[in-house]
């Protein structure tokens, strides 16, 4: 039992088989063109980047931010993840965009990238409350990556009433 579990896990969280369905065949909608990377990528490919940026735009719809900048930060933080987890994130973006999976599981036959911001938020919310563990995992991963990308930037802190660390008070006086 335990050995079986270990074998299962070493193949990766998302397995791969389910993600072969749909793939990126209908991926090249307008969103992909809109969310192009502006520099080299660490982990994501350009398609995964565009889905990550589209997701970030919906996740962070309550604040003003550039989804392309957010997606670059998400990509950079993924550089510290295990290679298998990096691959899972790339697979995740394909599953999220897949119109076939969207049709089968949500009755939504359109690629994620072609949806409005509100439509993307609804799709993400349905992932977050899905009965499928992999979808709930994917929702949490994207939500946390996008949130970290935005709120790690000191320019955002005034908006939440955070004055920042007392750097001068602590570092500016003798030890």
């Amino acid at each position, binding site marked *: 039992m*335990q050995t079986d*579990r*270990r074998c299962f*896990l*070493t193949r*990766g*969280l998302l397995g791969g088989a389910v993600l072969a369905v749909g793939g990126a065949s209908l991926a090249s909608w307008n969103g992909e063109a809109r969310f192009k990377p502006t520099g080299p990528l660490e982990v994501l490919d350009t398609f995964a980047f565009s889905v990550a940026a589209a997701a970030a735009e*919906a*996740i*962070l*719809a*309550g*604040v003003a931010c550039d989804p392309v900048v957010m997606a670059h930060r998400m990509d950079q*933080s*993924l*550089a*510290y*993840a*295990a*290679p*298998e*987890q990096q691959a899972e994130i790339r697979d995740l973006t394909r599953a999220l965009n897949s119109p076939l999976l969207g049709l089968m599981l949500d009755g939504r036959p359109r690629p994620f990238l072609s949806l409005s911001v509100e439509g993307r*938020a609804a799709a*993400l*919310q349905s992932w*977050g*409350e899905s009965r499928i*563990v992999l979808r*709930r*995992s994917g*929702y*949490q*991963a994207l*939500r*946390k990556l996008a*949130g*970290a990308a*935005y*709120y*790690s*930037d*000191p320019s*955002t*802190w005034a*908006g*939440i*009433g*955070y004055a920042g*660390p*007392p*750097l001068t008070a*602590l*570092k500016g006086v003798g*030890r």
Partner: protein
Amino acid sequence: MTLSGFINGSELPQDLNVTVGVCVIGSGAGGAVAAHTLAAAGHQVLVVEEGGHYTSQHFNMQESEAYPQLYQESAGRTTADLGVSILQGRAVGGTTVVNYTTCFRTPVETLDHWRIHHAVRGLDHQALTPHWRAVEERLHVEKVPADQMNRNNRVLYEGCEALGWQVETTHRNVKHCRQSGYCGLGCPVDAKQSMLVTYLPDAVALGAGVLSRCRVDRLIHQAGEITALEGTLLDVNGIKPTGRSVRIKAQKFILSAGAIGSPAVLLRSGMDDGVVGTRTFLHPVVVSVARYQAPVLACYGAPQSCASHQFADRGDKTGFVMEAVPVHPVLMASAMPGLGRDHALGMQAFANVAVHVALTKDGFFPDETGGTVVVRPSGHPVLDYAIPPRIQEALRESQKRMAQAVFASGALEVHTCHTRAHVTRNPRDIAGVDALSFKPLDVGISTAHVMGGCRMGEDPDDAVVRCEDLRAHRFKNLHVVDGSVFPTSLGVNPQLSIYGLAHLAASRMASSWGRA
């Protein structure tokens, strides 16, 4: 080359092939204490550490820099299904560089449980007390004066008092603390007495070496003996190999890579005996976010200075211990549920929220078997940890009790961290929490404590190391000295338990090996 002092492995221009007396793998709570104790006994000690050597000169109290510098997977480490976030250090000094400085001696009940249920012999309070004392003196472990609690801790403390619940200020390992509140991002003023500023420099002063940015790939073994360590040097960010390799021969090896790292080294080395990597425990917590009328500013002041053990023993149910945790923007963004405008509105309460957790005491009941460390094809470990119904019950109960406490100290409303936000605005409505799911990924679950995976015990078929000196049952020159040796979780924050046990085990090693 000289193998003493702090050596940055990312800068080594060639492969490293050396022989030392004692090789310690990992520089956290276990490895640093062991390294110092053995260096003091005259042994030639080399510590290898995967993380980087960052000091207070680098610590600028920003999450964007501290997480990639000081945490495993840039603070993004999770269990296999992403159901539990794992905050664990990865730096010279290990998790002690980023913990919240809370010090508890191992509870008597926990030591008794190990003796009765896990064949742990010779480890009682009497045996451990002199070792705790030695460490407590070196690390300035002292009880927090009540007037030094920040408001985040104070509201928990006052709420518990109002309800007649047990609560007390904790002990912390700090010296001239400036109460900044940034313990989790590396102490900016070296007040925290972490391994980075205590036992590691102490060991170095005695001639030890600390090689950072060295990932241990495997131990080479033959006929029950470790013959060498093989490792890889990593670049300045600790992500990519530099192309240089490391081979270290030693008379003795001490594995102190933490409760995920240590089993992973053994599994990668083909040393899986069916016990290695099993029974890994987490003190899983759910987060309670309470909003107050007046600012709480949980980002400032000693992050953790009180604890309530009121529900530590719940009879035939799993117990928990309530504590406060600090609030930083990324941490809060991660915890707050919702998307878009809902999430942004939640974040705007940043200054007025108090945030609390309850350490769930996992591993004390037969149906709490913990998690399993698995090594993926790339060699990176991952922990598979399910949340059994018993733990879900404890998480739910802790969510309700934390809400009771904050309402008793004047909270306006209390949020859980479920995927779909749940808010309680009246203490009469706390029972609404009973309808919520406490399965992973339905509610945010996290941990900063990883224990087990190389458990100690006298039965070689059910334990990785013996109790006397934490020597491996199956390998005569290998000791495992870190939180991985605990047979269950502790029920308290682990650092002092690891220090004390490391001090005891290394002192016994030094005695039995003699002076080098």
